[in-house]
């Protein structure tokens, strides 16, 4: 019964309904919205948030929170650009170093949380400051040009294949596979659902948390590199404040901040909702002052659609 299954799927992925409503509304309001180019633009604009949000999904599934993703993204990109230009490293080595930076930040977060017993909010808030500060220190506050080879990551192949979208989709699949099909992924759900039960079932909770935050850091590094590639320049101030967007994408996508729930697909939809919304507001030329109001109202409505529908079915 494919129809029944797809109905059930929709019921579980209510954010999709909100996205569809939003897309239909914008298509009616703006004739420019529903063009292939514009939709690809939306995809590109969603990419960085989505990649950050995939990383945050791991964390939120375990019941944690990662406020440092934006800063870690900036630090990773600055690391890449700095080692490749000032440091004279070949770019593949710089890329590896950049990913390692992201992972290292994640591991520090996890160590503080798992061994230092810090609340995730505090540990990652500290890292938010530390990573941003280091990015500023390394770059001396000025943007650094990205190596030519890497910044192709921001390009569009042919007319219709923006690489950021490709990277986003690949990272999404990776996140989905990790969450659904691997041992650490399933253990994340168990920890988020009932940490004590997970521990008593023999899951090494601390170790899984290390994996979780390391993944979040790695995804942040990828997001940072994609962002810097789009701009051809790594900026110390890049992705500031993106952590709230990333968390919002995950929560709009159906996850709960108390843990145990969340899916990569939902997160993707959440990130698309945010990107579609911002794109639409630009197309409709909503005034700067009103934009924030409209974004707020639409986010609330989008999630409201979801919760009300879910209540209807229950």
């Amino acid at each position, binding site marked *: 019964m494919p129809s029944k299954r797809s109905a059930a799927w929709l019921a579980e992925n209510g954010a999709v309904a909100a996205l569809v409503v939003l897309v239909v509304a914008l298509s009616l309001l703006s004739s420019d919205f529903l063009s292939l180019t514009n939709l690809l*633009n939306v995809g590109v604009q969603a990419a960085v948030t989505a990649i950050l949000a995939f990383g945050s999904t791991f964390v939120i599934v375990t019941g944690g929170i990662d406020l440092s993703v934006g800063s870690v993204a900036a630090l990773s990109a600055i690391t890449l650009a700095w080692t490749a230009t000032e440091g004279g490293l070949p770019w593949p080595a710089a890329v590896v170093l950049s990913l390692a930076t992201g992972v290292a930040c994640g591991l520090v977060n996890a160590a503080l949380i798992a061994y230092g017993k810090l609340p995730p909010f505090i540990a990652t808030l500290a890292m938010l400051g530390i990573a941003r500060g280091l990015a500023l220190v390394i770059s001396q506050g000025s943007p650094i040009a990205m190596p030519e080879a890497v910044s192709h990551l921001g390009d569009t192949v042919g007319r219709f294949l923006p690489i950021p979208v490709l990277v986003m989709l690949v990272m999404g699949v990776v996140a989905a596979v990790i969450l659904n099909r691997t041992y650490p992924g399933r253990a994340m759900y168990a920890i988020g659902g009932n940490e004590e039960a997970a521990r008593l079932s023999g899951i090494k909770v601390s170790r899984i948390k290390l994996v979780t935050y390391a993944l979040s850091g790695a995804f942040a590094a990828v997001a940072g590199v994609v962002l810097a590639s789009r701009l051809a320049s790594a900026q110390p101030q890049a992705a500031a404040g993106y952590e709230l967007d990333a968390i919002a994408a995950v929560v709009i996508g159906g996850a709960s901040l108390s843990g145990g729930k969340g899916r990569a697909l939902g997160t993707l939809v959440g990130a698309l909702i945010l990107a579609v919304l911002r794109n639409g507001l630009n197309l409709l030329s909503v005034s700067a002052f009103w934009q924030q109001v409209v974004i707020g109202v639409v986010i609330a409505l989008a999630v409201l659609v979801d919760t009300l529908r879910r209540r209807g079915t229950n």
Partner: protein
Amino acid sequence: GGGGDGLEIGMSVSTLNNPYFVQLRDGAQAQADKLGATLTVTDAQNDASQQVNQVQNFTSQNMKAIILNPVDSDAAAPAVTAAERVDVPVIAVDRGVNGVEVAQTVASDNVAGGKLAAQELARQMGEQGQAVVLQGTPGTSASRDRGRGFEEGIKAFPNIQVVARQPADFDRAKGLDVMTNLLQSHPDVTGVFAENDEMALGAIRALGSRAGKEVKVVGFDGTPHGLTAVKDGTLAATIAQQPKLLGQRAVEAAVKVARGETVEKSVAVPVKVATQQNVAEFETS
């Protein structure tokens, strides 16, 4: 030494998350080193109240003079009052302070700069066509003043139509995204005014090969990357504010007032339009 030996000066910069202010600081630091003064720089992170806090803290540290780069001209008054209470002279730099008097204001005029930007953009657009504005963070004084100057300036060109004004928060990535989106609804724009160079550089990425050819982008600040883009021809012009010079003048004044000398109430560091023709003269400053 230039007579400022060991003199302690505090400087609160509105934000260091922007290359423009980093240069402002660098100019000030260089001058302080030259004069042998000790400069302590704090970053108010664009938060007016944090700036008041920093000025208060300077007074506890017995600074001999304070250089204030206000986050907001109106909200800076209490900071100045705090310093005056303990007789520490204040030099305002880049932005003025409304409501109370400071020893000297070293500034270049954002409103005038906005006007210049309008004139230069109009000139390069052939005084006709559609233009869009990329606005800075709503509610900040830089965005307000530059925007106002631009609107006033562009009125003189009836054949130029400003078809969209959208915020991109002074951020390069947002400049890229917002410009991309605007190109969907306004594919025929031939002019872009960005309220800082960072957004302008983002817009240039969005425009791709059209930047500097069909579409003229004018930025603001004259940051090194902005000037490079001007040289390359992708950025049509930037309103160069000579931030290093601002910083330099401010330190000069601070050292003077700290030694009890009198200084002029205001020093204007001119804003200049940097275009491909004259860009060379800015790169050293």
